[in-house]
């Protein structure tokens, strides 16, 4: 038996189902969201129509977000829309994995996995995880082995803002280079046991870096993000969901995270501990 064991494949919340650009006026697409089929259609006037497992849509930051609720309740919260002025256009990459959104986001507060899986050499918690109604945020300072050994070691700060179980907005700042990075990590439950992971990276520089380098830096960061996710996927696809897990003190707030996740499983309590 492998893969998530007891996580509910039908969580409630907002989930990315497409890039806005993927659905031109007059186009239609169908898919699976939370184990049920949906159809999405963009009318000539740009409006989106939807049937099936989608209860509402929001189009923001280049993505189409779909609301899903197992009891078809309307959305009672929104994913914040980020201001895009001054930011380079989004680069996008999509992955597909045998996992569950909760497992993918659990990694963002699982401190111990960063050095072991991703080779971080330093990890300091700048702001401990705070859980509020429909978001969770945490901030770290990180350092990692550098792809270019001659460059000075950069120690960016890394902030995760998770909105429900479908949208994480990660904010990375490298003050030395005057560089800010936004990374959208969006896990969408499709067929039971599967997630689509939509990764979007956008950057903004304050002029300290030569502008001609920016496309390359942007591409390099995207490459790095995809690489890190692939490392995680190798674990996710083969792990078992342990509930309750046998934690040690240094593990970070995995227990509180799982407690917070419970609200997204109105249909079952099996999704949490």
């Amino acid at each position, binding site marked *: *038996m*492998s893969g998530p064991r007891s996580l509910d494949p039908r969580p409630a919340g907002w989930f990315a189902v497409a890039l806005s650009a993927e659905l031109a006026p007059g186009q239609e697409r169908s898919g699976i969201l939370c184990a049920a089929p949906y159809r999405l259609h963009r009318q000539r006037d740009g409006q989106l129509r939807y049937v099936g497992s989608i209860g509402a849509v929001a189009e923001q930051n280049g993505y189409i977000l779909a609301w899903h609720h197992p009891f078809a309740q309307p959305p009672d919260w929104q994913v914040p829309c980020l201001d895009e002025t001054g930011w380079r256009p989004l680069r996008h990459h999509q992955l597909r994995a045998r996992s569950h959104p909760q497992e993918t986001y659990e990694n963002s507060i*699982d401190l*111990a*996995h960063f*050095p*072991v*899986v991703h080779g971080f050499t330093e990890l300091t918690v700048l702001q401990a995880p705070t859980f509020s109604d429909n978001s969770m945020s945490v901030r770290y300072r990180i350092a990692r082995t550098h792809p270019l050994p001659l460059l000075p070691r950069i120690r960016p700060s890394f902030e995760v803002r998770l909105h429900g179980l479908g949208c994480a907005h990660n904010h990375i700042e490298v003050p030395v280079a005057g560089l800010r990075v936004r990374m959208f990590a969006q896990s969408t439950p499709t067929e039971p046991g599967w997630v689509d992971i939509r990764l979007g990276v956008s950057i903004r520089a304050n002029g300290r870096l030569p502008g001609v380098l920016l496309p390359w830096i942007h591409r390099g960061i995207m490459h790095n993000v995809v690489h890190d996710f692939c490392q995680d996927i*190798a*674990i996710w*696809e*083969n*792990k*078992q*969901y*342990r509930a309750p*897990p*046998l*934690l*040690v003190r*240094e*593990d970070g707030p*995995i227990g509180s995270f799982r407690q917070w996740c419970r609200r997204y499983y109105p249909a079952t309590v099996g999704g949490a501990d």
Partner: protein
Amino acid sequence: MSSRYPFGVSLSGWFAIAWSAELGRTGVLNRRAFGQEWVVFRGESGEVQALAAYCPHLGAHLGHGGRVVGEQLRCPFHGFCFDRSGACQSTPYGGKRPRLHIRALPTQERDGVVLVFHGAPQVPAWPLPENPQHAYGRPVFQSWRIRSHPQEIIENTVDHGHFSAVHGYRGLRPLNPVKTDGPHLRAGYEVIRTQGLFGPWSRPLVMCMAIQASGLGYSRVEVTIPRYGLLIEQIVYPTPIAGELLELRATTRLRLFHGAGGRRAALGRRLLTRFVSLAAARGMARDLAPDIRIWEHKAYLQRPGLAEGDGPIGRFRRWARQFYGHDEMAGTPVVKLAAAGAAP
């Protein structure tokens, strides 16, 4: 659970889980057996150990990215290290060792086969029979993945009737009556194989077979062929994977009695032994093909319609009961033989 037979895959006893050669010098293998996932690793000292595959910490599969560090296996997710007994010996956090434990199966390696003892943790692993001291040649390794159950495979050793009907043996004469001794079962036969050993053109052959089954995962047959001065050892290792799936491994090796001494003769003997081993293994595969066809489609009858000449099948089945019901830990429903119907 299969509808063709009433027993589950959570058996107790020694079962082959890999060939030694699959592990290399240090390595990690993933195996599914007894309905569960296992990792088998070889530490730097060369010792082999099987552990349950999932890390008790946060559930990563140790066989997907796990590394051997000294005598321990390091989890790919958080770097927790587990020793041969399954105890967590260290974490990257340093500090006190967490009280985490993973299930470890007693593991041994013999004659190129990695065997694990599966059963309730409080049941001590009984020893497999000592290897005979004969100088056997190098074994030939074969394996088949089939749909059946270990008990069905081992039942053939006492099923006298099938020797003639399936394998075309004539004149089966029990040399020793079937004897059971705890987990071991012994039997001896003399048979005439109408089809010779080296293909359909060779002459009928008188063979003596000494069979020893130890549990339902190990059955050793020693075949003596006086005409050729040959001793062939075939060990069959059926291992339940999950559901109806079964990995059937077999090793064949032999010893030639005749031959002169001397270095040149020794090389010739080695070559001849190898050649005959390969031929015997092919003969075994040919013999097994009709067995497999029957195993893959037969049903286990709770009340078999036995006839005279069938062999001690009832006794075998009573003996086999001891290998069930040991493993409440695995979470697999255990079906009592007596309670289950023949086919639901």
